[in-house]
């Protein structure tokens, strides 16, 4: 079943590739159908997931490569625990949303949707692979679609941004590869299930160095200050759908990797490093929020707010406890949906107004009431209003962290105030305020694909906000063994 979910997008790619040139506009239907099937399958799996059981479920395992001389044994090993399950659903959801909001792509649609589906495949692979090398392979495959998607269909300095993205990620993963090989040598296996049950001792390099090698790539991806500079560029210049995937899913690869690899395989080092995680987390929260306040470009604003919000993930991780880690996982999920929605809305505004400069926009609520309302919902969710998804995760993060890093947590809470500041200020400037004659001809979101995307995401935001257990329980079973290791 997992193999089906992960590789089903490839079928879509194949069909799109075979479409004749004069029917290239049909590729969006193929992509949408593919993404829909994946979503249905992922939700089905989510329902079938046994919430009382920790550990990995739906495991599929085959020997893939076995080298005797080099101790180079790699398995084709897929499986999900609660954490992977949540990420899988998130990816499938945003994968469909990304296709829907790309409905109007006119430029080379065949290639566009093929790359988008390939991207989805690699992300699904990352969250389900349980062999470290297989994980790394999916991690790397993701680079190529992103590179094309940003550099061909982006806007502004798209080529520069695409390069920057590829280099930062590739640079980080280079170190990850070294760490992976050292780890494989030390443990004689790449099986994450086994690795996260054994004690890794110093081999070739001290475990502290190993921890650094491994976390570096994840830190760039999350991104952790000062390696975040690729993010605003890539988000701003990417096409809307790619921004959604980038903010919604790709950033989570970093947080997921830290949990799955760094914390659960090297718990001893993680304990020593916790305070640093917390410090970097708080720096991320505050720095990201402060920089967000001064942004004049809507997309850049949301991009920097992601830097700030990923700080909560880092802070939650630093707690090393059940509540904190669950909170970090929840934050990844909710941020994925909320920020994904924010980018969708910004994309809709841009499609109509053809500018993202906050200073030029005003009073848009008159022309596009529905977009404005959804934007307000997403914004309020982002600043952590109770009854919406963002609140739950932030509360869990702060609750979990307070015992361990009290002072730092209090500093982090300031981030919430700042978030409220920039979100409300942005909404006021863009949607409220004077009705501007320049924008009087703009229309609301009327197309079915726009509405479907919006409604689906708003529904998830409220569902998780009102009944958080639906996701939190699942994530909680996922982090339980990791917490056990860290205790």
């Amino acid at each position, binding site marked *: 079943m997992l193999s089906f979910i992960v590789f089903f997008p490839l079928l879509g790619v194949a069909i799109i590739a075979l479409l004749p040139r004069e029917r290239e506009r049909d590729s969006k239907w193929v992509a949408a159908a593919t993404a829909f099937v994946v979503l249905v399958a992922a939700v089905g799996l989510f329902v079938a997931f046994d919430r009382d059981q920790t550990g990995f479920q739906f495991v599929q395992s085959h020997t893939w490569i*076995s080298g005797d*001389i*080099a101790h180079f044994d790699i398995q084709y090993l897929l499986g999900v625990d609660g954490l992977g399950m949540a990420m899988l659903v998130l990816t499938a959801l945003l994968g469909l949303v990304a296709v829907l909001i790309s409905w109007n792509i006119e430029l080379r649609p065949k290639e566009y949707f093929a790359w988008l589906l390939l991207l989805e495949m690699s992300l699904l692979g990352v969250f389900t692979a349980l062999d470290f090398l297989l994980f790394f392979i999916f991690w790397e*495959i993701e680079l190529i679609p992103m590179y094309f998607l940003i550099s061909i269909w982006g806007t502004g300095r798209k080529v520069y941004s695409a390069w920057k993205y590829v280099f930062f990620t590739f*640079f980080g993963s280079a170190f990850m590869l*070294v760490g992976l090989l050292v780890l494989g040598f030390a443990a004689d296996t790449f099986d994450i299930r086994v690795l996260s049950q054994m004690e890794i001792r110093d081999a*070739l390099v001290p475990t502290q160095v190993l921890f650094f090698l491994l976390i570096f790539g994840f830190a760039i991806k999350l991104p952790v200050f000062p390696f975040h500079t690729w993010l605003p560029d890539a988000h701003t210049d990417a096409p809307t759908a790619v921004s959604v995937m980038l903010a919604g899913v790709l950033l989570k690869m970093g947080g997921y990797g830290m949990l799955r690899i760094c914390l659960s395989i090297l718990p001893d080092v993680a304990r020593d490093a916790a305070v640093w995680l917390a410090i970097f987390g708080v720096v991320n929260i505050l720095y990201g929020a402060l920089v967000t306040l001064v942004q004049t470009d809507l997309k850049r604003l949301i991009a920097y707010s992601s830097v700030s919000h990923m700080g909560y993930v880092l802070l939650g991780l630093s707690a090393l406890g059940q509540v904190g880690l669950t909170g970090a996982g929840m934050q990844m999920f909710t941020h994925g949906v909320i920020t994904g929605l924010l980018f969708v809305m910004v994309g809709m505004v841009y499609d109509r107004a053809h500018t993202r400069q906050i200073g030029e926009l005003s009073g848009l609520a008159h022309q596009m009431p529905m977009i404005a309302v959804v934007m307000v919902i997403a914004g309020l969710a982002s600043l952590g209003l109770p009854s919406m998804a963002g609140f739950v995760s932030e509360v869990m993060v702060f609750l979990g962290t307070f015992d361990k890093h009290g002072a730092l947590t209090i500093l982090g809470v300031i981030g919430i105030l700042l978030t409220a500041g920039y979100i409300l200020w942005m909404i006021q400037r863009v949607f409220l305020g004077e009705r501007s004659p320049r924008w009087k001809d703009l229309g609301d979101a009327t197309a079915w694909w726009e509405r479907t995307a919006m409604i689906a995401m708003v529904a998830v935001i409220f569902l998780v906000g009102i009944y958080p257990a639906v996701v939190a329980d699942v994530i909680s079973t996922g982090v339980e063994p990791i917490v056990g290791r860290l205790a």
Partner: protein
Amino acid sequence: MDELGSVDRLGPELILLAFAGIIVLTDLVVQRRWLVVGGSLLAVAGSLIWAGTLVARDMRGSAFDGLLVVDNFSLFFAFLFAGIAAVVILASIDYSERFSRYQAEYYALILVSAAGMMLLAATVDLIAIFIVLELTGISLYILVAFLKDMRSSEAGLKYLLLGALSTAVTLYGMALLFGLSGSTSLDDIGNVVAAANDDTRAAVVMAMVFLVAGLGFKMAVVPFQMWVPDVYEGAPTPITAYLSVGSKAAGFAVVMRIFFEALGDRSISSDWSNMFAAVAAISMTVGNVVAITQTNIKRMLGYSSIAQAGYLVVGLAAISAAEGEFSLGASGVIFFLAAYAFTNLGAFIAIIAISNRINSDEIGDYAGMIRRAPLLALGLTLCLVSLTGIPPTAGFIAKVYIFNAAVQSDLVWLVIVGVLNSVVSAYYYLRVVLQMFLEAPASEERVSAGPSLGLAMAIASGGILFIGILPFLLLEVSETAARTFGS
């Protein structure tokens, strides 16, 4: 009976040489191009089949009183070189229209040099090694100059002069070994080297340095790479491909033979391991950094091949610290060579097909190639992605595998140099991809490959993906071949 057995074991090479003679002689009487091409393809096929029967009949053993051996190592290279020669012949069919005369000689020389390369992997006697080095070298000198224009002649002369110099240096190293041991057989030399005392050690080290310098020319590693860019640019493109893959692989084969068998003793192996580690680090760095500034794609691939040789040398340096085993690094080198052969040949085939039409090797002229030649551009992209080392390609697995061997040999620093170099290399490889996908084409004229080039491209692309996704077959073969050097 023993004589017959010897001849039998030499069969694959003899077929090539015999057909080379027949082709040239037939051409004196009937001049038909299809006869020449068909004959040379038939020769390669015959050689492959004969090598296959050697495996099937289990004819491993030594021949001609220990001048050469048939073992898994030499058989692997027999298949590899026959395959390379076949692809080069296919790639030459369209290209060779540029020189109307001497068609037969061109193909005959390819066959002769292929026989020489096969023998380089099979000979275990210094005299024999020297003779086949010359056999390969001289036929390649002529092939490089075959276009007989300014650049090609200059390239030929440069290759000849530097080649002669390197041969002299190699011979000097061999003479030292002979002087020490009184024997030309690698086995005997190995015994003498193992018994070396402080007085003779200096001479052994000197011989080792000379051999690295002389054979480094064939492998095209820094600092013996000076000839590469000019020769690659000037030579007929199929021959450039041949040099970059075949000649390089032959160089590595003979180095592995001499160093693992004659200089394999623990007392000396750590010396050359360190030396190779340094050569690897310098080659990777110089090759990649200089490649960045290239605007001619053949020169760029020239520098890239220097960098790739650097990755290969990592495998030579990787002698398992714990066990002093050569098979670990050797299997890495063998696997890498096969993966690299598919990848680089594929890249050159695409270049041949494209430059046949647009008559240019400038990277700038590849703009918009995805519109003009979608399949070729996709194929070239696959090759460049594989050269960068991004999954799911042969290049990725090869790199991980060879770096894994280095990690196991306690060469973590070298692996870090290697992965960082991969990051640098992404810049110039993907730049070509960007040109093809993003820039506007200079004209809308379609660029198509003929059937032979198309077939060659299909073989290469198929190989890259096959090794990338299902590497275990090649891995097993490489390990079997590498066990020849097991201790």
